[in-house]
């Protein structure tokens, strides 16, 4: 494997509140090579969201404290960067695609307003500037990249005027504005219908293939992992319990935890016995 775009080594994170503390990440290490699709999968409380927040620099201290470890992006340790330098990377080098398309958009501004403003501030952080017209052109360009059939109409719309699937596309477009190299997607498509989810997952896969992005997918849905990732990290109780290429992980999981997790997923082919009469693996 080539030099990783993102590389986490020995990350330990602790949360403290009301005089008690709890370590929530134990020695987490993971790699996201350039142009790869990596998944971080786990159930609620596994630490996948904390890991994601640590990468994006969104953990608040207090209550969170990074005890030790490194988060290297293109060789630079993000944890050692001054806050101002760190912030420059968000949205420009690495972008987040948020989970909930219903609540991540401001209802009183049009899509063009919201994407335009984000672009303006991203440009400012990077010491660039563009005219309003150039910004609008870029907004329409990213809306076209997420396969909106009528970018002009979408740009002029308010969030309520769009379906859930279209709003999710807008959130992906938002992440693409400043041409990042790494997309971090937090449970993409979980709030959507299954046919719409299939469209969104295909879009993410196509973006990775066509635009040379790397994708880090944070999810609890093993089906989504298998459909979209080539490498998988499984987390449980703050520990990476197993990591392997996706094909290997699903056909021959090594750890009991991974096995039980995969066994708990109902199969489209049926044959899963529910009730105390039919015990599972």
């Amino acid at each position, binding site marked *: 494997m080539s030099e990783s775009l993102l590389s986490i080594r020995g990350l330990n994170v602790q949360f403290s509140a009301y005089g008690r503390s709890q370590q929530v990440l134990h020695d987490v290490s993971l790699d996201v090579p350039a142009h790869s699709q990596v998944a971080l999968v786990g*159930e*609620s409380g596994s630490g996948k969201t904390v890991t994601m927040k640590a990468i994006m620099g969104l953990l608040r201290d207090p209550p969170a404290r990074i005890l030790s470890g490194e988060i290297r992006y293109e060789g630079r340790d993000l944890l050692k960067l001054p806050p101002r330098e760190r912030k420059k990377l968000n949205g420009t080098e690495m972008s987040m695609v948020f989970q909930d398309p219903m609540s991540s958009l401001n209802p009183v501004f049009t899509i063009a307003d919201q994407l335009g403003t984000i672009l303006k501030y991203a440009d400012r952080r990077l010491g660039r500037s563009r005219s309003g017209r150039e910004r609008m052109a870029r907004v329409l360009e990213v809306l076209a990249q997420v*396969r909106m059939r009528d970018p002009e109409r979408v740009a002029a719309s308010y969030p309520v005027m769009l379906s*859930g699937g279209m709003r999710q596309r807008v959130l992906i477009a938002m992440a693409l504005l400043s041409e990042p190299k790494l997309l971090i997607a937090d449970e993409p498509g979980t709030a959507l*219908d*299954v*046919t*719409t*989810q*299939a*469209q969104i*997952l*295909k879009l993410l896969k196509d973006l990775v293939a066509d635009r040379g992005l790397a994708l880090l997918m944070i999810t*609890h*849905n*093993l*089906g*989504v992992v*298998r*459909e979209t990732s080539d490498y998988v990290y499984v987390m449980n109780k703050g520990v990476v319990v197993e990591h392997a290429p996706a094909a290997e992980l*699903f*056909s021959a999981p090594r750890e009991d935890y991974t096995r*039980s*997790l*995969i066994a*708990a*997923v*109902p*199969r*489209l*082919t*049926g*044959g*899963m016995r*529910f*009730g*105390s009469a039919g015990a*599972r693996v």
Partner: protein
Amino acid sequence: MTVPVLEIIGLNKGFPVKNGFGRTVDEVRAVDDVSFSIAKGEVYGLAGESGSGKSTIARMIMGLERPTSGDILIEGRNLGGGMAAAEKRKLVQMVFQNPGSSLNPRRTIGQSLRVPLEAMGLAGRKIDARIGELLDMVQLPANFAERFPHELSGGQKQRVAIARAIAVQPRLLVLDEPTSALDVSVQAKVIDLLVDLGRELELSYLFISHDLSLMRNFADRIGVLYRGRIVETGRSDAVFENPAHDYTRLLIASVPVVTAEEEAVRPKIPLIDGEIPTAEALLALREQERRNPTSE
């Protein structure tokens, strides 16, 4: 022949569309001539996406919404025919999607379970005994009666919701996405519990979900809803192995799966111009092909 536990005949529900002056200008057909029945001890699954009308059907069965036309019969008795609300409640109960918001945060679990028991006319010691019994049935320790919902995990809360629903010994439980807020390992255990209770109490279930893999394994028969209509119905094995309707095929094709075997039997997603089509676009195209079979 035995009387089905639930029989729905020609059910319709239209919601008025009003203009700015409050005048009705149009009608949205949320439920369009739906009929199906559920036998004793049977699990019937209603599969559909948002806007398909599945929740409206559940709400009409629960008496929360009045049908525009059609009949809902429970054990042969018409729910619409002036049956008292209290009597309906004894026949049908519901388990909601999000146990976090369907339990009162200021009531202990015991207090929440007490409500339906008092409504049934139980009093005093009998209530406490029954609360203990109900908790035992959903495999929770008796001391959970003193706890508040926030002290419970999602799966435990859903068990309490199930205990509350079976408290009045109903014939039918309407399960509206009962496990969609839970982790898969917890989901499996909650479904285990529902299957065990169904056998023990001879309960029938109307299982509403968008999780087709779960439906395949849990429901005996399913109906696929699209825009208020049941477009396909049958035994779940049969529908999944041989989906007849284009919409059913698209739904099944869209399910993310975890094994190669599933991938092999899953229909391929049809692409239009290299993109996954919306259900509307796909059905419109198929309709066009049927009309002009030569244009292929």
